[in-house]
């Protein structure tokens, strides 16, 4: 079972597709959740997901706007897609019939 942040990271990576790398994923998570995403949490969670075989990462090309430094590119694996789908399904099922609206 995934953790909340792990799920958010998989969502951002899947959404970005070919353009998924550290800074872009971080920006996507902050944009979609409205919360700050710390660099430490991002990279250590990426390592954990990679160790579980849910994502794969590699060093991509350098660009001038990055000061000539490489990107850490990320891709969701088939196992990662299944884990994200299972997590999403669990949340949907667990929320069925509930309303969280407050007065």
């Amino acid at each position, binding site marked *: 079972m995934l953790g909340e942040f792990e799920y958010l990271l998989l969502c951002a990576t899947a959404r970005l597709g070919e353009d998924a790398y550290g*800074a872009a994923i971080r920006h996507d998570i902050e944009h979609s959740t409205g919360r700050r995403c*710390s*660099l*430490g949490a991002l*990279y250590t969670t990426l390592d954990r997901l990679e160790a579980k075989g849910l994502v794969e990462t590699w060093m991509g090309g350098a660009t001038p706007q990055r000061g000539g430094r490489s990107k850490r590119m990320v891709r969701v694996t088939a196992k990662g897609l299944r884990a994200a789908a299972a997590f999403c399904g669990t949340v949907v099922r667990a929320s069925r019939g509930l309303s969280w609206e407050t007065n």
Partner: protein
Amino acid sequence: MARICWLLVDRVSRTLEPDERDAVLGDFAESRVAAGQALRDLLGLVLRRQAALWTHWRPWVALLGVVVPFGILLSLVCRWWAESSATTFYLYANGWTWAYLESPGARLDLVRNGAGVILDCLALICWSWTSGFVLGSLSRRTLWVNRALFCLLLFGELLAVRHHHNPYNPLVWSLTFYSLMLPVLAPAVLVFLPSLSGMRNALRLTTLSPLQTMLWAVAIATLTGLAARDLEVSVMAALWPLRASWGLQLLPFAAVCPVGFMVATAKWRRWLGDATGSILILCIVTAIPVLAKTHTANVPGVVTDPRGKRVVNATVIARNRDTKIVYRTSSDKWGSYTFTSLPLGSYDLTVKAQGFKQVVRSNIELIVGATGQQDFSLKVDEAP
């Protein structure tokens, strides 16, 4: 301020793996993040990475096996060296007179004192370099934490114990250079810089070639054998409850431990085909200090007055009857004195103290590894 923050970001990011460092610094550049924010983000990542590294055994072995014991040991030895050498330096630098070169005895003293100082310096540098090398080999990515702790232990004793372990010679301690600068310079130059060099070499090489290892092993073993007595005295000066205990006999072994590690991890396979070479060299390295120890003996004792009260600052002289070499020490505030690692042979012991009659005990035989207690009860000198 921003420049300082970016400088810190650059320095701190070096603790990360090269690929990760590249990715993180690239992310900062692309996001145009403020320097302070970048530093906070980076520190968060580095702390998480360090916490993960400390779940392995290697940094703990480096901390408990090298940083703590050798930080304390080298700090004590260095402090003792600085304080005991201060008197020698003062004698020759501040009170120089050509009379020091006139008589053969004075010249011999000059050479002996100079050689003693150089020997101690070399021993400290070698112990520190090998300790640094082992520290670097054991904890590569956690090195900066262990290095900071090593530094803290090395200089911590100076802050914790402000008074001099050697309270005599107030004239020497009245000079700022001897009382303040030398105790700081000595650990910085003789311990910190060599250990830093050892750590840098360990990060580049991981293991040394058999030839380099053997050279280090022979140098360390010889120096440890020669400086074993100073090693014991320095610890005794700081930790008096250890006086004449078996723990002190093991100190020379502690000093060769780092080089033992280097021998065990050297690339022997290419040379000898298996691990027997490492074991053989390790035995030789440990045997030299042991042999040096087994040709010496310790003589501890207590000097008391007729009422059994301890006599402070009594001069105790041991004269070897064969070589005629004279060894001197004095009783401390508990009336205790110790001659450590005296060469074996027959000795005359003389005790002098102001207001008391001189006592001479002749023909005391020292045998291998003996710790022959020689207590003296002085009689009051009633002569006018």
